[in-house]
């Protein structure tokens, strides 16, 4: 009997018991969806059409930035409107009032493309207008990405011939129009944000289950029975880990399906969404294993899980969309696995990123999984094991 097969048998039974348990339905599906719906309504409805006005500031005055503003202002983007604003200061004043958010191409942007480090395209947002913030972010990222691509092409060309990329090359920066046009399809709905955010919150809150189960199995000597069989301690632990991953994937996929069908949410390209869901579930499994390795009682397991879960959720932007957070907090959010997962899903949803664009977030989630899971894989068999 291979240990791999044993791990799969353990994971299968664990999963079956959990899915059969009513608490999975409550914690894994109904809870997140209900909460996501409520929060989405509070954040401006679950309807599909984006109604927003985004300000565009061309402080740079380069052909590239002018072209960018001109193209968007002139584009037919339905209820999503782009208006030109004269200065960053004016944009900042108006973001709270008639503008949902604003994108600022800073002075010297085009010139900076010739240097070592290009300037950032800035997004001004209002916490009360998360959709506008996401749209603005998507537009800004799209423009910056293309500027970076053009810069790279120009620099490569410069290696061969001219030393510096000329204005003509930079002016040819492709405009991120497709971002805005797909955006009008209702891409950045609150439900597409809060569905996964609540799903992740509940997954992290239920991390204590692993510890609870192991402690209960120890109490009634179920662990003794398992360990008296031809199954290694590491296999027992790996089986649990697999089952946590499977529960996470199941829960998030059901939420994905329900928010898509019932609330019209658009999570983005399926391949990317699945990759993020899988990576996030792996991270949950790793951290849950660590909680189980540390917790000595059911209570301590639950306390640890809720502390970690709520901390990650608060900081990671599960309650307030990342896009409408101040820059500093957004960076802080990316220190948490929930923040990484939500950043990736928001990008996929906004359509600014294909799967490739969320590779850094997926890598970060996998790093969580490997580091926490590795520590758990070392410590947990010793906890369940032979003392």
């Amino acid at each position: 009997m291979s240990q791999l097969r044993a791990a799969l048998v353990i994971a299968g039974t664990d999963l079956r018991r959990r899915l059969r348990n009513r608490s999975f339905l409550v914690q894994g599906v109904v809870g997140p969806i209900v909460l996501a719906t409520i929060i989405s309504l509070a954040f401006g409805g679950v309807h599909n059409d984006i109604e927003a006005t985004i300000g565009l500031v061309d402080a740079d005055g380069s052909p590239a930035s002018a072209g960018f503003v001109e193209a968007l202002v002139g584009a037919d983007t339905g209820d999503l409107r782009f208006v030109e604003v004269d200065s960053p200061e004016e944009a900042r004043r108006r973001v709270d009032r008639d503008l949902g958010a604003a994108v600022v191409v800073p002075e010297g942007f085009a010139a900076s493309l010739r240097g070592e480090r290009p300037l950032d395209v800035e997004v001004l947002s209002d916490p009360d207008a998360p959709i506008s913030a996401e749209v603005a972010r998507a537009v800004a990222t799209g423009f910056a990405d293309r500027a970076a691509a053009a810069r790279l092409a120009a620099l490569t060309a410069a290696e061969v011939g001219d030393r510096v990329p000329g204005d003509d090359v930079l002016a040819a920066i492709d405009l991120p129009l497709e971002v805005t046009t797909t955006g009008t399809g209702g891409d950045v709905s609150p439900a597409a944000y809060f569905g996964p955010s609540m799903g992740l919150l509940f997954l992290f809150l239920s991390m204590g289950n692993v510890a609870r189960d192991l402690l209960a199995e120890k109490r009634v000597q179920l662990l003794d029975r398992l360990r008296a069989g031809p199954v290694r301690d590491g296999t027992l632990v790996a089986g649990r880990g697999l089952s946590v991953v499977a529960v996470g994937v199941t829960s998030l996929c059901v939420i994905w399906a329900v928010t898509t069908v019932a609330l019209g949410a658009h999570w983005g390209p399926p391949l990317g969404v699945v990759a993020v869901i899988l990576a996030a579930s792996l991270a949950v499994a790793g951290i849950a294993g660590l909680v189980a390795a540390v917790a000595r009682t059911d209570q301590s397991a639950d306390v640890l899980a809720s502390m970690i879960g709520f901390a990650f959720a608060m900081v990671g932007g599960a309650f307030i969309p990342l896009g409408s957070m101040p820059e500093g907090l957004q960076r802080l959010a990316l220190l948490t696995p929930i923040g990484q997962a939500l950043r990736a899903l928001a990008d996929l949803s906004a359509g600014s990123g294909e799967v490739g664009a969320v590779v850094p977030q997926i890598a970060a989630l996998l790093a969580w999984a490997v580091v926490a899971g590795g520590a758990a894989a070392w410590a947990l068999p010793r906890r369940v094991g032979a003392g």
Partner: protein
Amino acid sequence: MPDAATVTDRPETSVEPVLQCRGLRKAYGERVAVADVGFAVAPGETYGLLGPNGAGKTTTISMVCGLLRRDAGEVTVAGRPMSPEATDAKAAIGLVPQDVALYEDLSAEENLRFFGRLQGLSGRELAARVAEVLEVVGLADRAGDRVGEYSGGMKRRANIAAGLLHRPRLLVLDEPTVGVDPQSRNAILESVEALAGEGMSVLYTTHYMEEAERLCDRIGIIDEGRLIAEGTRRELVAQLGVGDQVEVTGTGDLAAFAAACAELPGALGAEARDGSVVVRVEQGSTALAPIVAAAERTGVAVGGVEVTEPDLEDVFLALTGKALRD
């Protein structure tokens, strides 16, 4: 150490024992749970570890099954050295823990299928074995019910079933009748007898003397982490040196009868009391006929005869100065 070796190395077990352990030791901090335990279980033998609460039975079994890392000593199961990593040695063992080690939210059948799969069974063979063991413990008609809905006795029986699935060479039962009603207890003892009758080796721990006497071919008496005596029930009782007691009630010259009895071969002493004679003999069953003959010779009319053998309770009392519980 040499003592343990002489106890374990029984010359008559020429076949390789299914379980062999020597010099087992386990301490939890200052407390020595098992100090020096060694014994062997021959193929087809039922071996009992008899001892009071806290004697070290579960700790010994945990080392035997590779659940616990031992501080010293050796364990071989079916010829393979046992350790927490030894999956091959573990495959030869079926453990029935002291608690009901089953998932209460799964049916008995689901539990058994799960544990059977982990033992490497699958497909038809698995289905057949699950059905068989359910039959053995008499739960076939309730197989689909959740274990949580079972009575205490049924849970115990399901618990035993889970240890039988892979036809282990050695079945290890840790106090399987604790807290069980008399009816279920009897059912459990009967199924253990049946399994032993089919040739399975059994290691059985208990603090009930009657269970050890009824089930076990040989018994090790364990107290405070040490095996203080070992042998068949008869050997253990013989160690006491007090012999069986035959009490003959009758009328006639009881003093002369008693004197005649004391002279019989195998007699350890005889005493006339009020209306009866009490004879202590090495073995009650063989002494009976000579005693009755002596009564005839001395003209005593026998009213009744009662043979009492000392039990393991007496042995334990004599060895430790304490009573076994119950």
